[in-house]
């Protein structure tokens, strides 16, 4: 790689890195919503396996814990974001949805063998996935 190309690459990386300091924008918000949709949908799939009693409890505990911490991280990021006024209602709604998703996944994490609880979690996560989609559609 030539010196100019290397410098260009470094400058581009810096610009992209500094881009993170800008106020929270619609694309970033959409990305967070996509992540939360994914976490909630995967949690629902995992809960479905517990309902069928056709999985391993250690796997469910670890995976549900991982998904819950991802939802928590998204909620934290949204809480800390410098949100423009026109996005604030949707972001606030999304924070509460993320916290609810995390709470459902924690239920699954702490009762990984309980089919009836998993069934409730599955239904709630299905509703939460739909709610996330509605927020995204409103953008």
């Amino acid at each position, binding site marked *: 790689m030539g010196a100019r190309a290397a410098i260009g690459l470094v400058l581009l990386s810096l610009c992209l890195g500094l881009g993170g300091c800008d106020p929270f924008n619609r*694309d970033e918000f959409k990305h967070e919503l996509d992540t939360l949709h994914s976490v909630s*949908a*995967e949690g629902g799939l995992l809960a479905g*396996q517990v309902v069928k009693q056709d*999985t*391993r409890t*250690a*796997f469910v505990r670890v*995976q549900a814990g991982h998904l819950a911490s991802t939802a928590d991280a998204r909620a934290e990021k949204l809480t800390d974001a410098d949100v423009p006024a026109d996005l604030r209602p949707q972001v606030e709604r999304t924070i509460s949805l993320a916290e609810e998703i995390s709470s459902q996944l924690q239920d699954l994490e702490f009762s990984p063998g309980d089919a009836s609880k998993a069934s409730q979690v599955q239904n709630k996560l299905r509703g939460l996935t739909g709610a996330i989609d509605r927020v995204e559609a409103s953008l």
Partner: protein
Amino acid sequence: MKFLQIALGILAAIGGFVDIGDLVFATQAGSAFGYQLIWAIILGVIGIATYAEMSGRVATVTGRPVFSVVRQRMGFSLALLTLVASLFVNLLTLAAETGGIAIVLNLFFDVSYQALVPVAFVVLAVVIWTLPFERIERIFGYLGLALVVFLVAAVKLHPNWHSVASGAIPHGHSSALYYYFAVGLMASALMPYEVYFYSSGAIEERWKPSKDLGLNRVNAVLGFGLGGILAIALVMTAAQVFHPLQIQPDSLGTAALGPNVALGQTGLLLAMVGMLFAVGGAAIDTCFAGAYTVAQFCGWEWGKYREARGAPRFTLAWIAMLAAGFVIVATGIDPVMITEYAVVFSVVALPFTYVPVLLIARDKTFMGQYANGRLSSVLGWAYLIVIAVVAIAAVPLLIVTNAGSGL
């Protein structure tokens, strides 16, 4: 008996083909784009089979592995650059694979990941120290074959075969993310450590031109080819389980969920066993590959078959690789993220590895009657063009897609 030996070698190669890079990129690609990126795996697999066959042939005929050839053909400075680049990528890959072992053990036993990382490194060190080369290759290769469960899952889920066939034909897309995954899938098939390991393995197993060149060809074509089918099965499973729900897999656990949904608890168990031995085998391959490249560059005695006393600096080199890999994983960086960077950066090192292999494999003064035929030459040159394009595109795509996050 000979047939059985060949069959066992092929089975080990199939089981050893998939590593954490394939698991991550194939699952993510299938989730994001359905079957559309199957062509990238096919392209990568033909490339690795072509170059693995060449490197195995060069090693068998000249008695010299790839890195020794790299130094001879490219001179000290370029060879040193290749050594540094390949060591960097090998180290990242080793760290990612070993972190992957800890992740899968965590899924099995729900013991803290941080506690399992040192366990994974100690187990690897004991396995490498105590077992002979061939047994390591076979054990990890055969148990890695449990990944066939992804193929069973993909078929059981009743894929749309017309869409699968369409995905096997290269086509464009408007999304940069699509090209990022295409590059990732090709690169994870073409990782340089595979040819370093494969060609050094030919010398470890003392292949002879008179009887083993057929075995080399069969191993490279069938072993890597059928291994590629496992990678396609990963895409197909993700395309059917995760794509309709718009799930974005970001962990090895999500990959294992596919066979769980399709085949229940048995599917989950087999997927985890396959993943454990696939990433474990790849960790050993990368550890050896790093030690091979250093030893071959410096002209040290090398080879597992020489035992520690016969090749002390080589032994120190693989121990140092493991120790450095441990330091990287111990920092707490997510192995999946390390994998993505390792795969993309390996692309930049690809031309430095593959150009000298092609040049020497076609050189009649070195290879005599075993020099490249027309097919090997055409495929070799064609793939150099593909590799050059992919190498130029890799880093910009990594930046534009924010390492595949799509933001």
